[in-house]
């Protein structure tokens, strides 16, 4: 019997669906014309312009700082929350679960507004830190969810075995629990990173003078800027960086071949 062609065709369709827009973007970043619909010839003018644009680079820097900090903090808090939810059952935990889940479904505009009102009433000046705090509030829910899924089929007997063999609580946590949960925590952290780096609505409300992030700057540039295609160039560079990071991490996390 001939092997079915369906999986192959599906693969091709999915790859085209995922990567054709990206290929189009990269192509357009080298387009002399300002408009995607017309090919005006090859040039690197938008890349040159990008490196003259200190504000875009600064906004990208802000976005990266916030996303890194928000994902690290929400990894810690989210894991703690997941533990509490999985290990202890009580009325209070039901309320806790509700509070963790609500930010997943809460409209961004509502969160942005309420956080802004909170910061204003506390008299906190708006800056990168307020954005980071805001991002942690929604990121930690995602991390908690992912880690909790991992905890559901976690064998707590391994921890007890470690304790039986003389490990302290901390040792058992660091040497047994954490390494086993690490993939879940990292997955949650990556999710948090991507959510943070492209959030617009919440960020707009809690950003302060001089803390424009890449999404807020890009949205504003759509209105009056002559330099919009610079964003294509920037996106292409970010894409290249992402591919490199993924390739390197795949190399690093490849299981070490067993030598004899």
């Amino acid at each position, binding site marked *: 019997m001939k092997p079915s062609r369906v999986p192959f065709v599906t693969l091709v369709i999915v790859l085209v669906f995922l990567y054709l827009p990206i290929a189009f973007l990269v192509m357009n970043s080298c387009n002399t014309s*300002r408009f995607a*619909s017309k090919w*005006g010839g090859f040039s690197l003018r938008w890349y040159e312009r990008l490196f003259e644009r200190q504000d875009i680079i600064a906004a990208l820097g802000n976005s990266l700082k916030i996303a890194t900090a928000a994902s690290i903090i929400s990894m810690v808090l989210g894991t703690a929350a997941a533990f509490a939810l999985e290990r202890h059952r009580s009325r209070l935990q039901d309320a806790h679960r509700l509070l963790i889940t609500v930010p997943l479904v809460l409209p961004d505009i509502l969160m942005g507004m309420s956080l*802004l009102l909170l910061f*204003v009433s506390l008299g906190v000046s708006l800056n990168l830190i307020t954005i980071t705090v805001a991002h942690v509030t929604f990121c930690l829910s995602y991390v908690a969810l992912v880690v909790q899924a991992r905890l559901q089929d976690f064998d707590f007997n391994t921890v007890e075995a470690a304790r039986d063999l003389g490990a302290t609580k901390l040792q058992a946590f660091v040497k047994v629990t954490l390494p086993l949960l690490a993939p879940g925590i990292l997955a949650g952290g990556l999710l948090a990173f991507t959510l943070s780096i492209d959030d617009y609505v919440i960020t707009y409300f809690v*950003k302060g003078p001089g803390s424009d992030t890449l999404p807020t700057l890009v949205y504003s*540039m759509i*209105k*009056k*800027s002559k330099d919009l295609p610079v964003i294509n160039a920037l996106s292409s560079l970010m894409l290249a960086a992402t591919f490199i990071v993924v390739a390197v991490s795949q190399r690093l996390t490849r299981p070490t071949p067993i030598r004899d």
Partner: protein
Amino acid sequence: MNRRHFITTSAAALAATSLPSCNSSGKKKTLTVFTWADYLSENATAGFEKANDCTVVIDTFDSNEAMLAKLESGATGYDILVPSSYAVQALNRKSMLMPLDHSKLPNLKNVDASYLAKAADTKMEFSVPYMMAPTCLCYLESKVSNPVESWSMLDRTDLKGRVTLLDDMREVLGAALKFLGHSLNSTDPAQLAAARDVAIGWKKNIAKFENEQYKTGIASGEFFLVQGYAGDLLQASEENEDMRIFIPQEGSAFSCDDLCIPKNTTQPDLAHAFIDHLTASEVAAENMAWIGYRAPNSAAYAQLSEDFRGSPVLFPPDGIFSKCEPIADLGDKLPLWTSEWDKVKTAV
């Protein structure tokens, strides 16, 4: 160094350097401008920073409504705002603006009196006009035979399905009002009802209401006639020589963004100095050429390149300019407009 060691150390190093830090830039004064992205030339900023030994920080918004929502919630820290005229009126009604001290603004004498006469804030008590541009129609010369420079173009059935209108109540009903010879800001129910019927007629002819894609659409030849903002259309026409932009002879919206100072600024003197700097003729001329809009600054007009000064779109002849109006705040008459606009949007 083994692999795991590498991962942990590099991750730690990365995390350590990337934590948000709030480094204040010494004792230098800071002026924060809340504005649209790329709406201020680099030279204009640099010149001001040098003259006043301060740093200009730009913070951006992407719509007047978003800006209003944020300021009304109590966000502070801004020294200059650059909203559209109607949003200035809304801010002023909530008494969020600081009255301008004209003794600190000697360059206000440069401001174009012919525009000022129509502006909402005629005496510049709270705001100084910054940049303006009309709403235009634009067609492809090769596709549209015997064009007329009038809103009546929108009725031409030979262009059916190749026309777009802005997805904006004020622009579409405003154009219809102008077409009928009324004021752009009319709140007369009978005039509005007539304008609604005109707009419904136009709607039958258009492909869609569109705010962003029309410029790419006409530059690529997908649309033959679009209603759009002069700034966008002028940019697009650099790519396509077939595009013809005009202000309809019945007049159109000539919207303006204004400079104003929020009441809670901590730097009123520096903010005044900034407004004065931008109204200086040579700064205004350079800024205009950089942004591609018209600053209502009579003294600066003479310093513009002939090309820029000769643009019939940004500098229309007096006969047409006198028929153009800025979009004004409707205040409590807004529901009248929204109900007519709903009828246009739901009409089949």
